[in-house]
Protein backbone atom coordinates (compact mmCIF):
# COMPACT_ATOMS: atom_id res chain seq x y z
CA UNK A 1 0.00 0.00 0.00
CA UNK A 2 2.69 2.45 1.01
CA UNK A 3 4.76 1.52 -2.04
CA UNK A 4 1.89 2.30 -4.40
CA UNK A 5 1.41 5.63 -2.68
CA UNK A 6 5.11 6.47 -3.04
CA UNK A 7 5.12 5.59 -6.72
CA UNK A 8 2.05 7.78 -7.25
CA UNK A 9 3.76 10.64 -5.44
CA UNK A 10 6.96 10.28 -7.47
CA UNK A 11 5.16 10.19 -10.79
CA UNK A 12 2.26 12.61 -10.29
CA UNK A 13 1.71 13.77 -6.71
CA UNK A 14 4.66 16.08 -6.14
CA UNK A 15 4.11 17.82 -9.46
CA UNK A 16 0.42 18.29 -8.65
CA UNK A 17 1.17 19.80 -5.24
CA UNK A 18 3.78 22.10 -6.76
CA UNK A 19 1.36 23.33 -9.39
CA UNK A 20 -1.32 23.87 -6.74
CA UNK A 21 1.18 26.06 -4.88
CA UNK A 22 1.96 28.01 -8.05
CA UNK A 23 -1.78 28.38 -8.72
CA UNK A 24 -2.27 29.75 -5.22
CA UNK A 25 0.42 32.34 -5.91
CA UNK A 26 -1.23 33.46 -9.15
CA UNK A 27 -4.64 33.44 -7.44
CA UNK A 28 -3.31 35.71 -4.71
CA UNK A 29 -1.74 38.06 -7.24
CA UNK A 30 -5.10 38.43 -9.01
CA UNK A 31 -7.52 38.52 -6.09
CA UNK A 32 -5.69 40.42 -3.31
CA UNK A 33 -6.41 44.14 -3.47
CA UNK A 34 -3.38 45.14 -1.46
CA UNK A 35 -0.18 45.68 -3.44
CA UNK A 36 2.01 44.46 -0.57
CA UNK A 37 0.20 41.14 -0.61
CA UNK A 38 0.62 40.95 -4.36
CA UNK A 39 4.40 41.15 -3.93
CA UNK A 40 4.38 38.42 -1.28
CA UNK A 41 2.21 36.20 -3.49
CA UNK A 42 4.69 36.76 -6.34
CA UNK A 43 7.42 35.42 -4.07
CA UNK A 44 5.30 32.37 -3.26
CA UNK A 45 4.89 31.66 -6.97
CA UNK A 46 8.65 31.95 -7.46
CA UNK A 47 9.31 29.39 -4.74
CA UNK A 48 6.96 26.95 -6.47
CA UNK A 49 8.70 27.38 -9.83
CA UNK A 50 12.17 27.02 -8.29
CA UNK A 51 11.10 23.83 -6.53
CA UNK A 52 9.71 22.47 -9.79
CA UNK A 53 13.09 22.95 -11.46
CA UNK A 54 14.94 21.36 -8.56
CA UNK A 55 12.83 18.22 -8.60
CA UNK A 56 13.88 17.55 -12.18
CA UNK A 57 17.48 17.06 -11.09
CA UNK A 58 16.81 14.57 -8.33
CA UNK A 59 18.26 11.06 -8.42
CA UNK A 60 17.48 8.06 -6.24
CA UNK A 61 20.42 7.37 -3.96
CA UNK A 62 22.43 10.37 -5.11
CA UNK A 63 24.41 12.60 -2.78
CA UNK A 64 25.08 16.32 -2.82
CA UNK A 65 26.97 17.53 -5.91
CA UNK A 66 30.28 17.98 -4.10
CA UNK A 67 32.99 15.58 -5.20
CA UNK A 68 33.91 12.73 -2.85
CA UNK A 69 37.04 10.73 -3.55
CA UNK A 70 35.72 7.20 -3.79
CA UNK A 71 32.62 8.09 -5.77
CA UNK A 72 33.31 8.68 -9.43
CA UNK A 73 30.34 7.68 -11.56
CA UNK A 74 27.73 10.18 -12.66
CA UNK A 75 24.87 8.22 -11.10
CA UNK A 76 26.12 8.92 -7.59
CA UNK A 77 25.59 12.68 -7.71
CA UNK A 78 22.49 14.82 -8.03
CA UNK A 79 22.32 16.84 -11.24
CA UNK A 80 24.07 20.19 -10.53
CA UNK A 81 22.74 22.08 -13.54
CA UNK A 82 19.29 23.10 -12.15
CA UNK A 83 20.96 24.13 -8.88
CA UNK A 84 23.27 26.54 -10.67
CA UNK A 85 20.39 28.04 -12.64
CA UNK A 86 18.07 28.42 -9.64
CA UNK A 87 20.80 29.87 -7.43
CA UNK A 88 20.88 32.97 -9.58
CA UNK A 89 17.08 32.99 -9.91
CA UNK A 90 16.66 33.31 -6.13
CA UNK A 91 19.07 36.23 -5.94
CA UNK A 92 17.40 37.97 -8.88
CA UNK A 93 14.03 37.51 -7.13
CA UNK A 94 15.41 39.66 -4.33
CA UNK A 95 16.17 42.39 -6.88
CA UNK A 96 12.62 42.11 -8.25
CA UNK A 97 11.23 42.46 -4.74
CA UNK A 98 13.32 45.56 -4.18
CA UNK A 99 12.11 47.25 -7.37
CA UNK A 100 8.51 46.31 -6.53
CA UNK A 101 8.86 47.80 -3.05
CA UNK A 102 10.25 51.02 -4.54
CA UNK A 103 7.24 51.28 -6.87
CA UNK A 104 4.96 50.51 -3.89
CA UNK A 105 6.36 53.38 -1.86
CA UNK A 106 6.08 55.72 -4.83
CA UNK A 107 2.40 54.77 -5.19
CA UNK A 108 1.91 55.40 -1.48
CA UNK A 109 3.42 58.87 -1.84
CA UNK A 110 1.30 59.85 -4.82
CA UNK A 111 -2.05 58.28 -4.00
CA UNK A 112 -1.86 58.03 -0.23
CA UNK A 113 -2.99 54.44 -0.23
CA UNK A 114 -1.95 51.06 -1.59
CA UNK A 115 -5.41 49.52 -1.91
CA UNK A 116 -6.30 48.79 -5.50
CA UNK A 117 -10.00 49.61 -5.04
CA UNK A 118 -9.31 53.10 -3.72
CA UNK A 119 -6.76 53.88 -6.43
CA UNK A 120 -8.84 52.87 -9.42
CA UNK A 121 -12.09 54.05 -7.86
CA UNK A 122 -13.87 50.92 -8.97
CA UNK A 123 -15.33 48.22 -6.82
CA UNK A 124 -16.11 44.61 -7.52
CA UNK A 125 -19.71 44.17 -8.51
CA UNK A 126 -21.61 42.27 -5.89
Amino acid sequence: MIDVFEIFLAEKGIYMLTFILMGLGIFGMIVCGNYMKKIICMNIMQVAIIFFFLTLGQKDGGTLPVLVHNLTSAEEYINPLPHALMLTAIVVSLGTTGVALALLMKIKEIYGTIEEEEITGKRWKK
Partner: protein
Amino acid sequence: MPVILLEAYFLLILIAIAIVVIFHKDLLAVTVIYCAFSFVAMVLYILVGAADVAFTEAVIGVISTVYFIIAIKSISRRCK
Protein backbone atom coordinates in the same frame (compact mmCIF):
# COMPACT_ATOMS: atom_id res chain seq x y z
CA MET B 1 10.71 7.34 6.26
CA PRO B 2 11.25 7.85 2.56
CA VAL B 3 12.18 11.28 1.32
CA ILE B 4 9.28 11.60 -1.09
CA LEU B 5 6.72 11.44 1.75
CA LEU B 6 8.60 14.17 3.61
CA GLU B 7 8.55 16.30 0.47
CA ALA B 8 4.78 15.91 0.17
CA TYR B 9 4.38 16.77 3.87
CA PHE B 10 6.39 19.99 3.61
CA LEU B 11 4.62 20.94 0.37
CA LEU B 12 1.30 20.63 2.19
CA ILE B 13 2.66 22.93 4.91
CA LEU B 14 3.66 25.43 2.20
CA ILE B 15 0.17 25.32 0.69
CA ALA B 16 -1.40 25.94 4.10
CA ILE B 17 0.91 28.92 4.70
CA ALA B 18 0.06 30.31 1.25
CA ILE B 19 -3.67 30.13 2.02
CA VAL B 20 -3.11 31.96 5.31
CA VAL B 21 -1.08 34.66 3.49
CA ILE B 22 -3.84 35.24 0.96
CA PHE B 23 -6.72 35.54 3.42
CA HIS B 24 -5.17 37.22 6.46
CA LYS B 25 -5.87 40.90 7.07
CA ASP B 26 -2.84 42.03 9.07
CA LEU B 27 0.19 42.86 6.93
CA LEU B 28 2.75 42.49 9.73
CA ALA B 29 1.43 39.02 10.55
CA VAL B 30 1.54 38.16 6.84
CA THR B 31 5.18 39.20 6.66
CA VAL B 32 6.18 37.10 9.66
CA ILE B 33 4.27 34.15 8.22
CA TYR B 34 6.15 34.69 4.95
CA CYS B 35 9.40 34.36 6.90
CA ALA B 36 8.17 30.97 8.10
CA PHE B 37 7.30 30.13 4.49
CA SER B 38 10.85 30.89 3.44
CA PHE B 39 12.30 28.61 6.11
CA VAL B 40 10.02 25.70 5.25
CA ALA B 41 11.04 26.17 1.62
CA MET B 42 14.66 25.96 2.75
CA VAL B 43 14.02 22.59 4.41
CA LEU B 44 12.35 21.44 1.19
CA TYR B 45 15.39 22.42 -0.88
CA ILE B 46 17.64 20.44 1.45
CA LEU B 47 15.39 17.38 1.01
CA VAL B 48 15.74 17.69 -2.74
CA GLY B 49 19.51 17.78 -2.34
CA ALA B 50 20.21 21.37 -3.32
CA ALA B 51 22.24 22.54 -0.34
CA ASP B 52 23.62 25.60 -2.14
CA VAL B 53 20.15 26.79 -3.05
CA ALA B 54 18.96 26.17 0.52
CA PHE B 55 21.81 28.28 1.88
CA THR B 56 20.91 31.12 -0.46
CA GLU B 57 17.21 30.85 0.38
CA ALA B 58 17.94 31.04 4.12
CA VAL B 59 19.94 34.24 3.71
CA ILE B 60 17.63 35.85 1.16
CA GLY B 61 14.52 35.03 3.25
CA VAL B 62 15.91 37.02 6.17
CA ILE B 63 16.80 39.97 3.94
CA SER B 64 13.42 40.14 2.19
CA THR B 65 11.61 39.92 5.54
CA VAL B 66 13.60 42.91 6.77
CA TYR B 67 12.67 44.80 3.58
CA PHE B 68 8.98 44.06 4.04
CA ILE B 69 8.98 45.08 7.70
CA ILE B 70 10.76 48.36 6.93
CA ALA B 71 8.26 49.06 4.13
CA ILE B 72 5.30 48.30 6.42
CA LYS B 73 6.47 51.08 8.73
CA SER B 74 5.65 53.66 6.07
CA ILE B 75 2.40 52.18 4.76
CA SER B 76 -0.63 51.28 6.78
CA ARG B 77 -0.63 47.96 8.52
CA ARG B 78 -4.25 47.02 7.95
CA CYS B 79 -5.51 45.82 4.59
CA LYS B 80 -8.96 45.12 3.27
